[in-house]
Structure formats: structure tokens, C-alpha cells
């Protein structure tokens, strides 16, 4: 679906065309370059966080308040009506009476699509279980574009837990609309699921599957690090074996292009040492900051304010 954004829901990267993505990235740049503290004056954003997520919720709240809008919501299902057994559908039907736009995070996959079908006002998915988190993907794309000046023609490496990492799956899908080469660097047990590899083949996108980060480091323009999540492993021995295999520090930069950019959806554990933080190559905190203009652009677009 392409065209105007007013009234649209942002549920999945799969719903967005390349043109849509570029429009959101352009609008994000305008938000950053020319902030308007009154753009959303008189408008209300509801943040429905059935599952806690401090960074995403605060980022949306900050985005809305910097545009003069107001925010209401909750940040745990124990304080919401879900604790009383209210369905996602009913909850969205109720909240549409109170707000101009809804942001929802839920641990159940597909909950965002249901809320979007229920509510008359636009719904933005801030994560539905292991499925989608499209605003994270859009801010990742915005970061790549801002750091490197382009998205096409880059070598982009994903490192770590590629099997369970939702952000990696969505970003790979989005990048398949651009002409970048993708590198998947992970142990066999945490490699990219077949369905995402098939998607790249369908779009004729070049990709490399490997294990050895040092072997590919010199080719990469972007290194997208991920956390190897303890909770994904039924066997703690297996976790201990894999957790430290992709730790990088300042000395790692000897193996990379001088202008490589390192991204991470955060929070990190120990895969990026803090001595990297003050290098120009470390883009992960700037990446988190980019959540503000990107989310401002999305809120303003779907409410028809820009």
C-alpha cells in the first residue's frame, strides 16, 4: 500500500513500500532539522504498553511532547484492563474514544493488527511478541542513511543472535527493498531463519552467511550487533559457550574500514565494550536518539498533521 499516510496504521514493515519508507525517512529528517514544538498541540497519544518497554515508551512520549502533544497510557498489563480480562479488541475500541493515535506493545503476536482493525484512530505497533517492531526498523534505516548518506550500495553485517532477533528480521526485510549486500554472521544454531533468506533470494539481494566476524569485518560499512539473549537457551551450557563469541572493543577497529558504523538496538550486555563508546564509529546511542525524529514523523504522518 502506498500513498497518503493520514489514518494509516503502522503495524508491519511488510505493509510498507519502498516509497513509503523513503517518505517516512524524509519526514524524519524534516522533524530533526526543523522541529515544531506546536505541531501536535491539542492532540493526544495513547501509549498502551501491555508489556513493559522503558526505552520505546519514553521515546514515543518524548517524541509527542516535543511536538506539543499530550500522552496518556499505562506500562504494564497488571494495571490495565487486560488484568480484568478485557480483550485487545475491546481495549482498542475504548481507547479510540480518548486519543487521536494509539501506540501499542503487547507480548502476543498479532495483537497490533487486531487493535488496528478495532480502532478508528491510527495504531502504531511498538512490538507484538516476536513478530514486528516497525518503528525500530525505521529508526535503524534512518540511522544508516544519516551515518552513511545512503542505504543502497552498502555492505551491512548482522552479528550475534540472528535466529530470534526480531529487529534483525525486520531490518533485513526492509533492506531487501534497497540494493545493499547483507552479511549474516552467527553460529549455526543462531543463524537467520530460512524464510528471511528466501525473501532475499526472491528480491535478488546478495548475501553472505558465515561465522567469522574478523573474516568479513574489512568489507562491512555497517555492523549491526545484537545481544545473545539468555532466555532463548533451554540449556545454560550452550548459552555460556556462545555468549561471548562476538565481543568487540576498540582494538576490533583495526580490522574494519575506518568509517565503519556500529549499530545496536540496545540494551547491550557485553558484546560491545564501553571503550568503543567514544569513537565516531559507535553509532548506537545516536541510533537510539534517532528514535525521536522518526517517531515524531510517524505520529505526524498518520494523524495527517504533515
Amino acid at each position, binding site marked *: 500500500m502506498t500513498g497518503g499516510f493520514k489514518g494509516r496504521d503502522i503495524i508491519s514493515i511488510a505493509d510498507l513500500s519502498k516509497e513509503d519508507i523513503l517518505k517516512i525517512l524524509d519526514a524524519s529528517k524534516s522533524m530533526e532539522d526543523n522541529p515544531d514544538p506546536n505541531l501536535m498541540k491539542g492532540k493526544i497519544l495513547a501509549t498502551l504498553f501491555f508489556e513493559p518497554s522503558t526505552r520505546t515508551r519514553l521515546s514515543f512520549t518524548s517524541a509527542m511532547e516535543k511536538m506539543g502533544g499530550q500522552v496518556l497510557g499505562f506500562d504494564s498489563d497488571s494495571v490495565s484492563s487486560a488484568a480484568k480480562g478485557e480483550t485487545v479488541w475491546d481495549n482498542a475500541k475504548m481507547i479510540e474514544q480518548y486519543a487521536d493515535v494509539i501506540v501499542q506493545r503487547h507480548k502476543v503476536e498479532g*495483537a497490533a493488527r487486531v487493535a488496528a482493525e478495532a480502532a478508528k484512530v491510527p495504531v502504531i505497533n511498538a512490538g507484538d511478541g516476536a513478530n514486528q517492531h516497525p518503528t525500530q526498523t525505521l529508526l535503524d534505516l534512518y540511522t544508516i542513511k544519516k551515518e552513511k548518506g545512503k542505504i543502497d550500495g552498502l555492505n551491512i553485517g548482522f552479528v550475534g543472535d540472528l535466529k530470534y532477533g526480531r529487529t534483525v528480521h525486520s531490518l533485513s526485510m526492509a533492506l531487501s527493498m534497497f540494493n545493499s549486500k547483507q552479511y549474516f554472521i552467527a553460529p549455526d544454531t543462531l543463524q537467520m531463519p530460512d524464510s528471511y533468506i528466501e525473501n532475499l533470494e526472491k528480491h535478488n539481494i546478495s548475501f553472505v552467511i558465515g561465522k567469522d566476524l574478523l573474516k568479513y569485518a574489512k568489507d562491512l560499512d555497517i555492523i549491526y550487533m545484537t545481544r545473545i539473549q539468555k532466555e532463548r537457551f533451554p540449556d545454560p551450557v550452550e548459552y555460556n559457550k556462545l555468549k561471548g563469541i562476538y565481543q568487540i572493543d576498540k582494538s576490533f577497529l583495526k580490522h574494519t574500514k575506518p568509517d565503519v558504523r556500529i549499530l545496536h538496538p540496545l540494551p547491550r550486555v557485553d558484546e560491545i565494550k564501553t571503550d568503543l563508546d567514544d569513537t565516531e564509529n559507535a553509532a548506537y546511542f545516536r541510533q537510539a536518539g534517532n528514535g525521536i525524529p522518526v517517531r515524531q514523523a510517524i505520529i505526524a504522518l498518520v494523524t495527517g498533521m504533515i
Partner: protein
Amino acid sequence: MAEKEIVVPAIKDGTVIDHIPSRVTLKIMKLVDPQEFEHAITLGLNLFSKKIGKKGVIKMSDKFLTEDEIEKIAVLAPLATVNIIKNYEIIKKTHVHPPKLIEKTVKCPNPNCITNMEKITTKFHVEQEEPIKLKCHYCERSMTKDDIVLN
């Protein structure tokens, strides 16, 4: 033709579902509950088929399928044919085709999908017809023929 009739006897009135892959024939059989169904059902398995190799055939006397039932057959056996029989003659032959959007007849195999948590009608997009590949409209999980469970 004569040989086939010996293997699976002809019916006077009813429905013949033909060209079912043998391995899903019993699944399709479950569209009717044989305990409740009053009329004759004849089942053939592992019959030779030029089109699909080993096939199954189900003949149900005095049974005419609903659109939902035909949709379920299309999902499980996209190459099947459904023949309506009146007085021993085929009066209508339908090559089943899964619709682009399959509503309510299939269950999502993902236990963490909202359709398995709340009362939501399932919806699946047909990504590929043969071999069939479906994508859940809600949780976006893809499934192949082995994962398909009917509602």
C-alpha cells in the same frame, strides 16, 4: 474408467472428491463425522494417478459440500477435484483453488498468535498454491502443508 469403478464403487447421488494426495485423504475424510453421517462413504487410498502419483478418492452418498468445506479441501489438496454426482452422472466438476484469503477454516499453528488467545476469526494469505504456503494475517508466521490444522 471401468477398473476405477471396481476399486471404488460408483454412487448414485452425492460427491466424489478425487485427486487427493494419499497422505491427506484421511484429514479430508474428517470433514464429515462418519459416526454421525447417515449415508455411505467409500474411501480409496494409494490409487494410481498419472497426475499426482498415489492418490486418494472419497465418495460420499447424498452429501453436497458447502463452500467452507470446499475451501478446506483446497487448502489441504490444491489439485483435488470435486465432482457432484446426480443419478450416476457427473453433473459438475470443480477444480478446487485456494482463495487468496482463507478465513476461519484454518487454525494458526503459532501458540502465541492472538487468534489462539482471543476470539478472533483466523485469516491467512495464500503465498503459494502448490506446494501450499500460508501466512497468518495476524502473527505473520508462514506455514507449509505439514503445519496446517483445520479449524
